[in-house]
């Protein structure tokens, strides 16, 4: 039952190897995409409320604009982590 119909040509093995390598590259690309994408969605959710609060605060007190801006971009660091992971995946 374990007998395989016919023998596999050496060229076919090479081809299969190439396909496997290409598949891996594809998975790496998906992984890198997920790393940036999910980190972006996460920080977007975090920034949503901070940004709304910052706009609310400086609608009343204009001098809070600088502070509000800094607070709003703090979750942005998470995207940078995602980006770093994506670069590591793609180039190392």
């Amino acid at each position: 039952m374990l007998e395989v119909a016919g023998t596999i040509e050496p060229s076919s093995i090479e081809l299969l190897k190439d396909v496997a390598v290409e598949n891996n590259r594809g998975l790496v690309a998906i992984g890198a995409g997920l790393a940036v994408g999910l980190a972006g969605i996460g920080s977007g959710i975090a920034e949503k409320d901070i940004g709304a609060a910052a706009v609310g605060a400086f609608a009343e007190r204009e001098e809070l604009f600088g502070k509000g801006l800094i607070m709003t971009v703090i979750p942005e660091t998470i995207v940078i982590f995602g980006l770093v992971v994506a670069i590591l995946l793609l180039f190392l």
Partner: protein
Amino acid sequence: MFFNRRGSKKYAYITARVRGMKSKLIQREVFPKMMNMDLAEITRFIGESEYKQDVDELAQKYSGIDLVEHALNQNLARTYRKLLRISQDEPNYLITEYLRHWDIWNIKTILRGKYYGAPPEEVQEAVVAAGQLGYRQLISIAGMESIDDIKVAFENTPYHSAISDYQGGMLSTVENNLDKLYYSRLLSSVGKSKGEMLSLKFIRTEIDLKNLKTLFRTKNADLPRDEIMELLIPGGAELKDGDLRRLVSLSWQDFIKSMEDYSYWSALSEVISEDMPSLMGMEAELDKYAMKYSSEVSHYYPLSILPIFDYIIRKNNEINNLRTIARGKESALSDDIIKKHLVM
């Protein structure tokens, strides 16, 4: 998860903005300084602060204490309308319900004016359009001659059921109906999630404080038991129906003693006694307690309606304090008496 029957819960913007507005309120250290000013200086002082627009607008029409009074009322109405303008969905819904307090206040003012035969102009000047009823609507209702016309004017509002039975005469029943209507609407407007439970407790505490004031006044005046029970609003946090029934049936001495069983004792312990000369101190202490409590709970759930309720209470208190100082100065009251009336 993100939506309920009243729309989404967008609290981040409104609470941050309200905190910004709260930071512009007059600081408590300023009130003692204002005691040293005369009426003209007080008018100039508030004319240079957040009340500038209102003082400027009304300066041509009024002067002296009338100018201060009208500027304060107009500013209060403008501030509360701003809260409604800048909020949406659930916060807007809850603020609308909470500010119906001013509709109730205006209806009471109009009915009282009619009852005591005050000229329509005086009633029109006393209304504060901070609720759902607009200024023009209130002015036209205040100008009506008969009680029946007033009832017809309120036909399409939620308040009609509370005043529909009124045939003239004593107002206590209709005022009581209005208060009960307001609080039952408010209690049913708040949901049951964790953050909202605290809002519910906040409203229930407010009912308690109102009931306590009523209890002190009526027990002090020695009103019959049934009459007092009618005046109390059900739904309090600590003073449940059973407690209210028990407190009403106690004698004045026992009533004062039994106050020790409730958490409000911490606020009342120094101002109440069996032979207290006046109830003024008690009312001021309960108002202070309400402010302290609202400030505390607003920090528990920063992204909820509580910081907004806190601001509404503080703004109203600021207006009351300014009015007290201005009126006190105009009547040449001593600083000590004015200070006793201030809630800081």
